[in-house]
Each structure stands twice: as structure tokens, then as C-alpha cells.
């Protein structure tokens, strides 16, 4: 979760404002939302992902399902795919998850019933970057119709995203091999500070004519973690296909949670549908993204100034909340035990945990860990 420079959680000012508006609106009640969710939320959420001028939206071949966070969107999508993709109830369709990935990806698809979950090459530890060739090879070798979970931006946990050129190569292989793109978009806006930039990959795939799913989370970019606000965007060949897909997703939702929670969706819908509030929100998002970017550049410059062995450009080249520092398990143990700095054994740090007050200490500690421990 995001933290301020004081190390505190941050409720976005625009969220506070909108919550007050909702509280003051006596015409609102607590009635059930439709099964697929609040219509104004669904339409706006998909518009954010695909862009105002999205041809797919114009052609009415976009469907949306309000879900409980990004996880809920992934799960409804996974449940649907298991039932209806590549045949009926084909649990044997391979599902590819990046190595490494958010560990819950595996569980979501497994509990949805898929029997063959594999990894695709992603992180190159030696060069501390994307293993594009390995990734493309895996896609070439993957059975046709395999499902690939792609991180739309700010890859979790590595912070390493393909460049636009690399995305183009990925898309080309996926198209040729008839692979299904399932995007996980948990950080739109939060990664670069720009909604459009962070949605580039998803929009490119749409422009290339793919049918795809995109699981969107508004936990981070709206700071609405505990309200469970998510959206599953479905892009299909035409309106008729999308309509049938949504009717079946409705059946899946009905036996999972019946209908989604209203509070968070109301906040997002109200914000996105008002030009003024929308601008305010974009400003809040940029505030968060900029702080993270600042911490990255400050950490890197300190490590370079200290002369810490190794190269540290990956700290600023990586994007989003997380960074794969490259520290090995022993060095991580040193950080935790001796310096009381908590990070994952993988060397992943949450950049949000850095503040102007602790930057020096963290940089020095990394320096010590790298020089003392090999």
C-alpha cells in the first residue's frame, strides 16, 4: 500500500471530498446493485482502461463487470475462461504466469479449476531486467490457445515492464500463436503518473484486434484498498459476443457474491464522471507516482554516491511500487536482522516504504549488505 513521506496511509483528498458528497446525498440508499455492478462505474472504469477514443468502445464491443478488487476481477475472468474458453469446461488449457509474479495469480487460476498452470520466463536475474527472448520463446512453444497473464504496467514484483517495442513483439507472437491475453492492471496511473501511458500495452493489444480480458484494480490508484473496487473489462469481436459473455459472467457472479459492494464503486463513478473531480483525481495519482519516482531517484543517487558495488540504474528503470533490488537472500537477512529493514527474501522492496527521513539509512544499509555479504 502507498505511504506518504511521513510513512502514513493516505486517503486521497478527492476521495474524502466525494465521500462527503455521498454522505450528504439523502437520495442515496443501500439497495442492491445490479449483479454486474453500478452501470456508471462499469462504463467509466472500462473507459479509463481503454481510452476515451477507444474504437472498441465506439463499436460497442466492450463489456464490464464490477468485481471485488483486482483479485475478484481475475477470479471472475478465470472462472469464465475455465467454463467457456477453448471448448466447454476445458480445465486442461495451459495458463501461463510470469516468473516471478504476484503469488496469488497461481491460486486464483487453480481454484478456478485450471489443472495446468505454467510459468513463462520474465525476470533475468543476471542482467536484472526483462528476459525478452525467454518470454518470446515460451510463447512460441506454448500450445495454441494458452492463456497468458500479462501485467499491464508496473510488473509485480519486479517493477520491470516491456518497452513499447517489446510489447509489439509480444503481441505479434501471441497473435500468430492464438494465445489469449489476460491483463492484470493494478497500477494504472500509479506507475508513471500518466493514465494513458500506463494503459499503452492494453490499448495496443486492442488496436491489434485481440479479444482480451483486463482485470482492473482501483485499490492503489484510488487508495480504496478496503472497499474492494475492481472491474473486469471484456473486449470482444462484436457486441453480440460480448453480450453473451456477460450473461454467463452474470451467472458466475450470482453464485460467488450475488452483487458487488456499492460504496467504493460510487466513489469511483462519481469521480470519473465529473471533469473537475477527474482532474483532481489525476492530480492525486500523480502526487503518489511522483513521490515513488523521487524515492527511486534519490535511492539510486545515494547508492552511486556511496560507490556501492554493482550497477543501480535498475532502481530508476523499474517502475511502480516494487523494486527487485538484486540483493541475495543472505544480504536480505542482513538487512532484516542487523539493520531492521524489512524486505522480501527475493530482494523486493516496497518503494512506498522509503521516506526522505530514512533514505540515507536505507542506502547505507544496502551499501553495508552488499559490501559485507556476498
Amino acid at each position, binding site marked *: 500500500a502507498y505511504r506518504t513521506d511521513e510513512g502514513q496511509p493516505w486517503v486521497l483528498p478527492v476521495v474524502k471530498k466525494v465521500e462527503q458528497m455521498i454522505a450528504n446525498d439523502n437520495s442515496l440508499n443501500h439497495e442492491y446493485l445490479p449483479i454486474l455492478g453500478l452501470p456508471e462505474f462499469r462504463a467509466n472504469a472500462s473507459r479509463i482502461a481503454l481510452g476515451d477514443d477507444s474504437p472498441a468502445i465506439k463499436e460497442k464491443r466492450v463489456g464490464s463487470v464490477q468485481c471485488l478488487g483486482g483479485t475478484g476481477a481475475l477470479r471472475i475472468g478465470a472462472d469464465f475462461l475455465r467454463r467457456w474458453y477453448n471448448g466447454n469446461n476445458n480445465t486442461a488449457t495451459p495458463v501461463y504466469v510470469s516468473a516471478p509474479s504476484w503469488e496469488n495469480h497461481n491460486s486464483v487460476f487453480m481454484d478456478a479449476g485450471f489443472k495446468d498452470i505454467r510459468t513463462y520466463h520474465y525476470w533475468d536475474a543476471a542482467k536484472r531486467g526483462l528476459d525478452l527472448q525467454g518470454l518470446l520463446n515460451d510463447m512460441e512453444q506454448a500450445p495454441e490457445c494458452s492463456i497468458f497473464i500479462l501485467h499491464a504496467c508496473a510488473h509485480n514484483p519486479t517493477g520491470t515492464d516491456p518497452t513499447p517495442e517489446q510489447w509489439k513483439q509480444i503481441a505479434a507472437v501471441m497473435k500468430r500463436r492464438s494465445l489469449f491475453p489476460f491483463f492484470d492492471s493494478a497500477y494504472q496511473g500509479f506507475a508513471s503518473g500518466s493514465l494513458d501511458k500506463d494503459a499503452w500495452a492494453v490499448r495496443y493489444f486492442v488496436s491489434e484486434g485481440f479479444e482480451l480480458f483486463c482485470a482492473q484494480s482501483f485499490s492503489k490508484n484510488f487508495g480504496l484498498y478496503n472497499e*474492494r473496487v475492481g472491474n473486469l473489462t471484456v473486449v470482444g469481436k462484436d457486441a453480440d459476443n460480448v453480450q453473451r459473455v456477460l450473461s454467463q459472467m452474470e451467472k458466475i457472479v450470482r*453464485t460467488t457474491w450475488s452483487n458487488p459492494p456499492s460504496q467504493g464503486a460510487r466513489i469511483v463513478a462519481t469521480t470519473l464522471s465529473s471533469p473537475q473531480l477527474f482532474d483532481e483525481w489525476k492530480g492525486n495519482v500523480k502526487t503518489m507516482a511522483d513521490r515513488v519516482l523521487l524515492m527511486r531517484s534519490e535511492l539510486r543517487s545515494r547508492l552511486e554516491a556511496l560507490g556501492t558495488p554493482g550497477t543501480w540504474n535498475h532502481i530508476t528503470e523499474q517502475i511502480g511500487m516494487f523494486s527487485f533490488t538484486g540483493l541475495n537472500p543472505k544480504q536480505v537477512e542482513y538487512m532484516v536482522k542487523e539493520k531492521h529493514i524489512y524486505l522480501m527474501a527475493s530482494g523486493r522492496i516496497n518503494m512506498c516504504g522509503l521516506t526522505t527521513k530514512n533514505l540515507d539509512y536505507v542506502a547505507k544499509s544496502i551499501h553495508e549488505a552488499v559490501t559485507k555479504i556476498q
Partner: protein
Amino acid sequence: SSWWSHVEMGPPDPILGVTEAYKRDTNSKKMNLGVGAYRDDNGKPYVLNCVRKAEAMIASKKMDKEYLPIGGLADFTRASAELALGENSEAFKSGRYVTVQGISGTGSLRIGANFLQRFFKSSRNVYLPKPSWGNHTPIFRDAGLQLQAYRYYDPKTCSLDFSGAMDDISKIPEKSIILLHACAHNPTGVDPRQEQWKELAAVVKKRNLLVYFDMAYQGFASGDINRDAWAVRYFIEQGINIVLSQSFAKNMGLYGERAGAFTVICSDADEAKRVESQLKILIRPMYSNPPVNGARIASMILNTPDLRKEWLTEVKGMADRIISMRTQLVSNLKKEGSSHNWQHITDQIGMFCFTGLKPEQVERLIKEFSVYMTKDGRISVAGVTSGNVGYLAHAIHQVTK
């Protein structure tokens, strides 16, 4: 070509279809009796005062929006358990239970169903009363279990087929799962009397069945939360370690906030901890952690003495209005000159009433009188008001005389 060419159009939801048709109707006298949500005497949704107060208190605390634990808001789950089990419950006091927050009743039922599919190896069969809430069947089926039925409703008398139920239940294979509606049976409104519950508990114990209680109307049925939870508490006292799904949609009017809970009564606190760990493993790949808003409101109400008192009064108010509409409907039918026995309308309890009307009669009610209900003759008494009960009685009399 599309990946989805072979995907069939899902069937329209039967209950939604009723509301859709109602909306299109231009008759000023129209009535929507399909709605599964409480309405006040003006036919409007009712936001409880205690809910408004709780919301104001919550807003003033200016809390952050950090993720809840996977199992939900602890103050909420503890209060939910205490509400269901009773503060003097040995099971509650000893801690030999686990309660996790669920997405209202449906989400709680589904967590339980998934849990049973994974850990209850003795049987794949869930026995539902005939009839049951329409969504029970697909929930258990999607969780990977199979559905069976036991006799419950007697259409001849519009009441409980107790001997049929006892007969069927006594023949259920040992260690199967049986689902019971704790109170205000949906859709019939027919509940067992306390003596009948005692006999049901005895036979269920004899057959060593896993009892799954669905309690969506505690407080809303009789107006008394303890009375409505009587069966749940009795079973536990008889040594039956039940599992339980609770909803706060109706009794707190928190429908769209999705406040619910799933409870497992265990042998001891240690077992409860182990069960809890497995429930979390099931929840995480579904939606990670639950939504805070409804749980916070419910928790504030249950844990703040003044609010709790106010809530008990308001929930009784809702239940009383429903009961009074039942009474008025019957007396109006008599006034219309109906010679039928409508006693079941006042004998039944909760939001719904199985009128006993046949599909042809229902169709006439819809077409000729713009009175909308589901084909099985079920009406939501919540949709009846003192302003339209006379019209409803008139319409029913016309199609049944």
C-alpha cells in the same frame, strides 16, 4: 472469428424479469411483489436510523482505507457470532468457533460450500428443503457439490409437511450435508415450531448429518433476534457442530454493502484456528479480503449499546409492519367475500409468502391487475402497504373466486 461464438446466452433471471416487466407497466395501481428488499409503508426503501447514525460516527473517525484482514473486520465477526449464538453460548465463550466475514449471505454460503467441498470428505451431497431459495442450488453446484432434496412444503395446506420432512431426513445417508433455513424460510415463509425443531435436531443427530444453517433474517422474522436464532442455538446446545451463514442485508437494510459472515462451530479453539487458516486460503483467491463499509456499519451498531438498542427497535418495526400487512391482507380478503382459507398468510413468517396461487392465477394477476409476483405464487409482503393491501386483496379474490 471470436473465442466466444459458442457461448450461449444465459437465461434471464426469473426474478429480475418480474421487476423489468413491472417497470414497463404504466398502470398507476401496479404492485411489485417480487422485490426481495424491505419497503416502508410508502413503498420506499428504508435506511435504518441506526445505520445513518453509525455512518456519521464512522465518518467522524476519519479512518484510513487499508486492507482488512482476509477473514474480515474482527469486531464485526465477533459481534456477528455473538448475535447468532447468544452471549451466553458455551461455544461462543469457549472460543470453539471461527467466524469469517463474507460477502453478505451469498458470499458466506459460497465460502462454506467451497470449504465443505475441500474438507468434508464424507459426502458430496447437500440436502435442500423443497423448495429452497433459487440460488442455493447453483451456489453448491458451482462449489462442486451435488444437490438432493427433502420434503418441506406441503402445497395442499400451504404449510410444513413435517412428517414428510422427518421421513425423508431419517433416510438421508449418514454424514451427508443438510441445509436448514434458520427462520423465515425462503420462499415459503413456513418455519417449524420449536417442538418440531427439537425433533429435527434429534433425527439430524441420529443420522450424523453435517448441518448447514442459512440465517438471512435474524430479527426480521419475528421481530425478536433471540427467538429467530432459537433453532441455531438449540442445535448447538444439543452438541451439533453446525456451520452457519449470516446476512445483514435485510435485518440492517445493508443490502448493497454486502455484510455477512460464515461460522464454523468446532470441537475446540485449536480446531477453530486450523479451520480459520483454511478458510483464509479459500478466500484469498476469490477476492483477497472483504469490503469494509457494511461490516463497519454493522459492527458499530452491534457494539454500541445505544445503537444496538435502536437497531432492535427498528428491526422489530420492520417485522411488525410485515406481520400487520399479512393480517390486513387476510382481513381484506374476507371483506372481499373470499371463501378460501387464507390462514397460511398469517401463519407464514418473514418477507415472503407462498400464496398458493397457481401459475394461471398469477398470470391473470399480472395481466389484468398489474400485480407482479413470481410464477410460483410467491409474494414479497414487504411490497405490500396499507395503501395497496385493499387492491391486492381485491385482485387475489377476483382470480380465485
